[in-house]
């Protein structure tokens, strides 16, 4: 009965979304308040209905109701409870339902939280959001229904891909989708503005919190996925330039460009069409990602559905959404009024360069991702575009971006004094040169790119700190005055400082772990010693253990350095008996200086059961990636909580901000 309630709720949800697609839009055109307001009621209903469906599906997974086909194919009665819950969105159908749930929750958020937005813009935005909901609800109901039933039910389920049974991955899709789908609301705002024919600084202000929220979620989603790949796949890599990773990275790049461009629209009224176009493109890239992953176009861990009917349906949705919005853009963009003027050297120009570089970087990734697919479709030839392509194309663009990033925040609006800025950064430049030289001295054999990149990471970090120090007049004014200034600096400014510093920290991690990685792969027998990066690793043997739905073979590795005991690593190989597959559980010793990473595979040969394939890596500085990514997300959150975003709900300011300043 419960699955049927879910099914019924979804059917109603599709009907409600159709009403919401039309009524508020006519209302806005005819100036009818009731029709416009109906969007609030429908968005509440839509969220409630989809939430009922989601809860029904989750219930079916939790109690292992195998009359639901989706549960029978993706779960098993022996599976640990956490993964039963996570299995709700682990399958193709379930993940779509999560996608839609997030979509309607964002719609609800706009209809309830955005009290300062004019009714017309809100009605149109919610109508556009409902188009997307209707598209995806119908896609789900007609091609991938999560509530398809089986009767009589199979006695037990077929389990979920054990690789996907992992805490990191259980949380990865929800965050990734919060980001992907979060950009839908920005897209809806952009299309609504195009329908209305008006984009102004106020519009940019209304949209900013949604862009930031989506960006933070997407950042976390990508990092969780990367972290999962790092410790679960057993290769010690954190980014493979795999198409599935790329498709989540492209909306991130475009989204990053988007909110930088939106700042200019908000502050100066310029870059209007640029901002709108980026809003459309960011969500289009999210849709493209959904299409590439969901259509089974790729054969990788993530592409778990191979069904052309689905692919064609999403392709249709994609064509309508992207084609329609770009057509609308082409019609409306020329009507947009130009904004404030600015000199070639100014904050605006800096942000323009930022946008151009990010857009180029996105295009580079897009090309590298789609080219092999197109080539295969046209000629049937299978090629893979891997790290060499991206290192040669994407990385240099980003390095230029980093140079600009150091300077940009120091430039003032309209017209800036580049010479003065560079003068202020001379110490930073010297320091980064020194850092590069030190790295070169320590490791002359290392790749030139790494030496350069380390220099640039230091440059960025230094420039960010210089900017902050000059804002609070550190060293120029008395310390008390500087502290007061530091407290008074708006939170969005701290958001920028923290996020930019986060990127610098990430860079150090990227470089350290890829340029100075050491790796040993060997056949080991109990008693074997392996030397790596100054560690002495002793392989003590393998024991067999039994988990809830797997059998584990756990190796014991004792690690010494200079004869002293350091730690014990216990990498595992787990065989899942129902699904009939194995996973690697690596063991990692993490320090700020680097990770010692161990994983174990099958015995070398059937005949040599005591010889195991061991992979041991030392990855310097890898933990900096996770710290830096955390800072990036934290920066977004800081900006998001800036008081200035809460316009329209005026609140009396209390505390230090209201103290008048005596001297300036």
């Amino acid at each position, binding site marked *: 009965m419960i699955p*049927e309630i879910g099914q019924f709720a979804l059917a109603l949800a599709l009907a409600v979304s159709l*009403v919401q697609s039309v009524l508020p839009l006519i209302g806005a055109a005819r100036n009818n308040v009731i029709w416009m307001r109906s969007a609030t009621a429908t968005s509440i209903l839509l969220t409630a209905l989809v939430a009922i469906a989601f809860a029904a599906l989750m219930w079916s997974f939790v109690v*292992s109701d195998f009359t639901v086909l989706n549960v029978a194919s993706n779960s098993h009665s022996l599976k640990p409870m956490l993964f039963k819950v996570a299995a709700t969105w682990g399958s193709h159908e379930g993940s779509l339902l999560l996608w839609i749930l997030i979509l309607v929750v964002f719609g609800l958020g706009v209809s309830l939280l955005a009290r300062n937005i004019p009714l017309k813009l809100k009605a149109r935005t919610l109508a556009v959001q409902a188009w997307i909901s209707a598209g995806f609800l119908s896609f789900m109901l007609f091609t991938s229904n999560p509530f398809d039933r089986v009767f009589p039910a199979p006695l037990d389920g077929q389990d979920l891909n054990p690789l996907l049974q992992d805490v990191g991955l259980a949380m990865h899709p929800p965050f990734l989708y919060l980001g992907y789908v979060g950009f839908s609301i920005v897209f809806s705002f952009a299309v609504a503005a195009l329908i209305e024919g008006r984009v102004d600084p106020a519009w940019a202000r209304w949209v900013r919190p949604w862009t930031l929220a989506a960006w933070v979620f997407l950042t976390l989603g990508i990092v969780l996925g990367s972290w999962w790949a790092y410790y679960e796949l057993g290769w010690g890599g954190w980014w493979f330039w795999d198409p599935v990773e790329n498709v989540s990275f492209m909306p991130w790049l475009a989204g990053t460009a988007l909110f930088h461009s939106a700042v200019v629209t908000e502050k100066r009224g310029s870059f209007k069409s640029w901002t709108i176009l980026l809003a459309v493109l960011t969500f289009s890239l999210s849709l493209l990602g959904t299409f590439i992953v969901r259509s089974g176009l790729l054969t990788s861990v993530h592409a778990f559905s191979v069904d052309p009917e689905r692919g064609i349906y999403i392709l249709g949705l994609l064509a309508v959404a992207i084609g329609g919005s770009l057509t609308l853009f082409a019609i409306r963009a020329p009507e947009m009024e130009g904004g404030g003027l600015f000199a070639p050297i100014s904050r605006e120009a800096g942000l323009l360069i930022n946008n151009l570089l990010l857009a180029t970087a996105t295009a580079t990734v897009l090309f590298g991702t789609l080219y092999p697919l197109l080539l295969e479709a046209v000629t049937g030839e299978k090629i893979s575009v891997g790290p060499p392509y991206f290192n040669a194309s994407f990385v240099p663009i980003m390095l230029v971006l980093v140079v600009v990033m150091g300077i940009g925040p120091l430039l003032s609006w309209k017209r800036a004094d580049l010479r003065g800025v560079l003068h202020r950064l001379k110490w930073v430049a010297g320091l980064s040169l020194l850092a590069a030289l030190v790295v070169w001295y320590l490791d002359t054999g290392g790749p030139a790119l790494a030496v350069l990149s380390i220099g640039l990471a230091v440059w960025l970090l230094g420039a960010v700190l210089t900017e902050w120090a000059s804002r609070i007049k550190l060293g120029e004014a008395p310390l008390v005055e500087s502290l007061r200034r530091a407290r008074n600096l708006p939170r969005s400014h701290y958001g920028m400082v923290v996020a930019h510093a986060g990127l610098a920290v990430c860079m150090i991690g990227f470089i350290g772990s890829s340029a100075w990685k050491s790796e040993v792969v060997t056949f080991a027998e109990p008693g074997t010693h392996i030397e790596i990066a100054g560690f002495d690793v002793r392989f003590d043997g393998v024991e067999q253990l039994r988990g809830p739905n797997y059998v584990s073979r756990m190796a014991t590795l004792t690690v010494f350095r200079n004869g002293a005991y350091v730690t014990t690593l216990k990498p595992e190989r787990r065989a899942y008996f129902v699904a009939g597959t194995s996973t690697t559980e690596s063991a990692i010793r993490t320090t700020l200086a680097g990770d010692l990473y161990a994983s174990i595979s099958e015995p070398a040969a059937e005949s040599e059961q005591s010889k195991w394939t061991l992979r041991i890596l030392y990855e310097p500085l890898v933990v900096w990636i996770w710290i830096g990514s955390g800072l990036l997300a934290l920066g977004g959150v800081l900006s998001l909580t800036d008081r200035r975003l809460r316009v329209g709900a005026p609140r009396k300011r209390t505390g230090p901000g209201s103290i008048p300043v005596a001297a300036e």
Partner: protein
Amino acid sequence: MIWIIFSIIASVVFLTLAHSGMCRKTSNLSRRDSASAIYADQIGEVEKDLERGIISAEEAKAARAEIESRLKAIDRQSDGGEPMVGHSGRVLVLLAALTVPALGAGLYWQLGSPDIPSQPFAQRTGEQAEARKIADLAVRLRSRLEADETGGPTEGWVLLAQTYMRMGRFGEAADAFEVLLDRPDASSALVSQYGEALVYSEDGIVTPKAERAFDRALELDPSNPAATFYKAVGLEQAGSPDKAYDLLKTRMEAEEGFRPWMESFAAQLNRIAPSIGRAPVDLAALAPSIPGPTADQVAATEEMSDEDRQVFIRSMVERLANRMKENPSDLDGWMRLGNAYAVLGENENARNAYGKAQKLAENLSQTDPRKAEIARSLAELGA
């Protein structure tokens, strides 16, 4: 119960929507108010930035002038006149509120299966116990057969293999059949069942090994329909759908009247036919009588012990039930499934199956004997 819940949900949806149309509040946050608030706030920010010393007095002045000109600009832009709340507006909202439950119910009618109950795993102890019992029996039977110095009786191995098939352990089923291949009493049916087990264990692929089994089955009995069927599947997988089509068609035409296996033949033929531009076959033309178990099958069950017979019938029923999952529009299949459940005394399942058949039979002509048959069976089952 389920219909009550559906009605409640539908009514709540209707009422919420209808209420939004009846709402008398007409406050309309216009763009002018809203944008002015933003710009006023921006001017405030400029002042504060000036206080904080982030921008110079000159910059602040320019920024202020720019924002003020934006403020003036919104006054120039009209907002499309006064908001209106017409009577007609309410009617349309009410209409939408009525359409939503109707549309939702219509969709549900297409997609839902209201008659399938939920079956949480924890409530299925009976089935689990039975499955464990069968697994136990299989283990015991196997060890007895393996311990037998004469190699164990053929029927025993067949029973074991069929039990494995039913448990979904196709590889082990194939192993059990394989023991019998060299025996003089290895019949065509047995060899083709072996082939079938191989196909199942390879996820439906007819491997060369399986193909050899079907060839041998056909050597022993050229009329073996199962072997013919899988030969055709193999041909199609090897890229010769034409040959597959011919093979199936020829075999069907060799028969006078209807045979139960023809349904799967016809389904296969009709699946292949459009892609190679050949004519589909009409099963109804082949005397749509109600096929039960064949005489041979009945005779076979009579020689078995009670327990074996139950197991045998169960295995048949479950295989049929599985087929029905893949092909739920098969009217005759549902009727046979209903009949089989009735024989097993599972009246609830029987009623369900006949219920499905009744739905499918709605479009048949009144004179179709199957209609009467379904009605009679349902009456007997007390539905």
